[in-house]
């Protein structure tokens, strides 16, 4: 359910950006969502599309979601690997748990295309 709050926050900030840039409308917005972010992408897209009608400049905006994988680097041996699970993994090469998370927690608005 918090996807709705986040979608509303995104629309608000896009609307402010559109005002600031004196845009006629926003055409596209690109967001990156990691698999560990706790966001259900379908719910987020649904909420975005349901709520965008409230903002005249955003009503036609297309939301492009890029899902990023859960990627770790092992600090012991340097091996980089991707996992599907949310559980804390071990390095498949050397068994170490001293890992650095490279991606997976992203929740970022990357950019937007606007018409001026």
């Amino acid at each position, binding site marked *: *359910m*918090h996807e709705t709050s986040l979608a509303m*926050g995104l629309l608000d*900030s896009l609307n402010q950006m559109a005002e600031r840039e004196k845009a006629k409308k926003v055409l596209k917005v690109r967001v990156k969502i990691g698999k*560990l972010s706790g966001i259900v992408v379908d719910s987020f897209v649904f909420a975005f599309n349901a709520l965008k009608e409230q903002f005249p400049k955003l009503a036609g905006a297309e939301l492009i979601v890029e899902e990023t994988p859960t990627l770790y680097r092992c600090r012991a041996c340097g091996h980089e690997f991707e996992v599907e699970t949310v559980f804390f993994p071990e390095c498949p090469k050397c068994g170490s748990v001293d890992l650095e998370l490279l991606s997976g927690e992203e*929740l970022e608005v*990357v950019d937007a*295309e606007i018409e*001026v």
Partner: protein
Amino acid sequence: MCDVCGCGQHDHEHEHSHFVVSDDTTKKNVEIKKSLFSENDRVARSNREHFDRHGILAINLISSPGSGKTTLLEKTIEALKDELKIGVLEGDIETERDAERVRAKGAAAVQLTTGGACHLEAPLVHKGFHALEKQMEGYPDILFIENVGNLVCPSSFYLGEHIRVVLISVPEGEDKPAKYPKAFKTSDVFIITKSDLLPYFDFDVEKVKKEALSLNPNLKIFVVSAKTGEGLDEWFNFLREKVQEKKAAKVEG
């Protein structure tokens, strides 16, 4: 905290947009590079600065409805109210009931009703804390923020707390950590409540601990019962220790 309502002096982060000019003159690309949580996180950071400045230990309690967050708070207030000033922000969708419960035990409390939202967000905590300061005519040593009963959404919203506590009660079942990984990954403390019911449920404490630690190796775990008092002293001592650390950090700072 107070850059939000203008009652303090802080640096503001200003936004800059970067243009990438494309061939089509009527279209342009605006680089944003901003977290979806950026507004919440900005207010949360300012909440935290405010807590730090006044040496307040802030604790965010997260669990399903009915795990015993309010009961644990009642016991904690009874035990610590003579040595520490305790303030509580009670998050619920509706009613003042929980705030009334903890006030009856002798703590200051402000009820935050979200009116439908399934989690607390930093701006509501900011507003609620100002109301609490007024009620207390000063600052608490410990601030408990009792989140809306929900193991999912509250784990995504940082409120400015120093310690996040996730609770599950024995009757809820031993598969909670595996089913709600984010709550366990983002917490610092895990409390298993209603341990007096262990004889009646298939709840393997060691298995649950192991599963929780595999999600988050840094979790500190307590097993408690508000009914029998089991494990409560360890929890109280942990709080005393953390309050001391906070006060010491304030003196040094």
